[in-house]
């Protein structure tokens, strides 16, 4: 509802139109997300992951379900727990593995960490670490769609923490005023690093912020992949039809720490276990397929096996890739010049001595005068 926040109906018409095959595809992407992250944990423990590792355990339905509502021509910007959305948009396991292992032929050639990468052709733009910044950037992307009269939509993921930033506020307000075809997904997973939601905002719920911005607001069960798809599809359709910005709050729970190093000492005892036992998006998706679509255990097992096989093959390729060449660090800060020069102490001092004055100290005789 415009200017009003509302809870979405259980499962609406958009999700009802999904075919059995499409629902199996949703399962495939969720399976891929979870299993690929488990593989990354194994590589992390072998010290093959160079930096930190970020999990989306328990949030896979948000990333996959929301991104599944986009068309190929649409553009999405993920957050650190939206690897699943990137997979749906065409990022490959081998790219993600190479990124984490800082390989020379990774999508960023070893310049950026983890899933901070993108491809505008496939329709995803990589995030940066300062949170909220992608909201203004995606406002600019969708402003271009509007200026060019293109039938394209943008979707940007943020977390509960990012809603406290100036960039989030300025970006969604700007997009709202310009009536841009942008969907802002606020993934409320209970924690921003160690900070619980109640220390992030005094609002009763994030979806209420839609009222202040004059945009559509809807909230959905983020652990129900069909509900996520449904609420997002409605917002995407509305944006495509010229209805402007929507703010969607997806209610979920972060079962792992901010990153692998995080002990989660700040989480009340039993909270994580309760979510894992009672409200796991992956279990719920599997149950939905079994109970509502009559999917057999064999069919599920076949998908699981396919995912494992793909990740094994990707791991072999990624591990065999070489690290970047050091001099590659100097390339591409600007379009022009194409590369920076190494500093003199990396060139054996030649650059310094060539400027020495032959005549020595204290004379004006330089040939110029």
């Amino acid at each position, binding site marked *: 509802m415009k200017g009003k926040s509302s809870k979405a109906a259980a499962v609406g018409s958009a999700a009802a139109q999904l075919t059995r095959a499409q629902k199996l595809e949703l399962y495939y992407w969720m399976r891929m997300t979870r299993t690929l992250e488990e593989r990354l944990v194994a590589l992390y423990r072998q010290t093959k992951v160079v930096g930190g590792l970020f999990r989306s355990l328990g949030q896979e339905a948000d990333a996959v379900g929301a991104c599944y509502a986009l068309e190929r021509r649409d553009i999405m910007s993920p957050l650190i727990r939206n690897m699943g959305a990137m997979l749906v948009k065409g990022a490959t396991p081998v790219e993600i593995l190479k990124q984490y292992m800082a390989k020379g032929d990774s999508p960023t050639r070893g310049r950026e960490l983890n899933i901070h990468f993108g491809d505008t052709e496939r329709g995803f733009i990589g995030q940066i670490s300062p949170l909220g*910044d992608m909201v*203004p950037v995606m406002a*600019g992307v969708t402003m271009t769609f509007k200026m060019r009269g293109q039938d394209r939509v943008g979707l940007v993921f943020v977390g509960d923490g990012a809603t406290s930033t100036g960039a989030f506020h300025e970006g969604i307000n700007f997009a709202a005023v310009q009536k841009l075809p942008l969907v802002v997904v606020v993934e409320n997973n209970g924690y921003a690093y160690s900070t619980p939601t109640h220390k992030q905002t005094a609002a009763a719920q994030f979806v209420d912020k839609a009222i202040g911005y004059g945009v559509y607001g809807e909230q959905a069960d983020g652990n129900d992949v069909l509900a996520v798809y449904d609420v997002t599809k409605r917002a995407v359709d509305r944006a495509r039809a010229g209805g402007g910005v929507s703010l969607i709050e997806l209610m979920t729970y972060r079962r792992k720490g901010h990153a692998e190093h995080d002990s989660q000492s700040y989480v009340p005892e039993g909270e994580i276990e309760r979510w894992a036992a009672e409200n796991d998006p992956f279990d719920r998706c599997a149950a939905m397929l079994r109970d509502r679509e009559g999917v057999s255990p064999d069919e599920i097992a076949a998908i699981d096996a396919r995912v494992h096989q793909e990740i094994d093959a990707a791991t072999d390729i990624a591990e065999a890739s070489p690290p970047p060449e050091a001099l590659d660090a100097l390339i591409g800060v600007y379009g022009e010049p194409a590369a920076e020069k190494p500093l003199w102490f990396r060139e054996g001092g030649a650059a310094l001595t060539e400027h020495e004055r032959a005549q020595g100290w204290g004379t004006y005789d330089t040939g110029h*005068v």
Partner: protein
Amino acid sequence: MAEITYLEAIREALFEEMARDENVFMLGEDIGAFGGAFKVTEGLLAKYGEARVIDSPISEIAIVGAAAGAGHMGMRPVVEMQFIDFLANAYDMLTNYVATARYRAFLPCPMVVRGPSGGYVRGGPFHSQNPEAGFIHTPGLKVVYPATAEDAKGLMKAAIRDDDCVLFFEHKYLYRRIKGVMPAGDHVVPIGKARTARGGEDLSIITYAATVHKAVEAAEQLQREDGLSVEVIDLRTLAPLDDQAIFDTVKKTNRVLIVHEDTRTGGIAGEITARINESCFAYLDAPVLRVTAHDIPLPYAPPLEDFVLPQVPDIVLAARRLAAW
């Protein structure tokens, strides 16, 4: 061709580039119907319409970020900061997002962030700043700061055509005080090239923006009163610095004074001095001297502002000291 002001020269560049390339558009606060706080964008809305001349909310983060996003998609946005002091509001977006985008993600940001800069206008602490040093320090950004009307036009056209983000500082003291005759045709001044504002043999003043005019005035006084031949180098582009032009003038005169309106500590004069030390120390017959603003937030009252900012007598004094070394 008639003379036009520095401000009109910038406007002329904007009109010409919008006509040349439909991907060029304007984004900023009060730039459309009102024509901008200084009227730089006046007339653009009437000619190009609301789709290409966009009045924005007071949101520097949003307009810089949106320009980056549009740039990724092939547009060439020109963003106005109502005062360049407000670049600070967009500092994260410029330094963390825009400056790194090409390097970390191969995403170009062909955008210009332009706005009125500088003091000598009784603007007080938030309408007089010269915050260029913070951005020169950031790899991935280009920074230009013209001193003449001809360069204001030619550099603006180059900035709009550049495939990276260019911060375009417009000195508001020069807006209506400086005039020039625009060269005929498609007048583009390359980014990264300094200009010899005045030739000389005895010592060099390296400077940019409004202090170019103060340096030239000082040089004429020194010629008249001391018989000194002073060369004045107008950097025009601050990132990337034209090292060759700097080293050439050092080797020619062997005495260097660097003048800027920005504050002293961490200002670009320190960087230029370091480069001269590293690359042509043996050509120096005297230490490199600086005349800069004091390290003070810029005050409003004329006696205070005049004291804090570099003036012609300060430059003359420093040049005499340098010549007598």
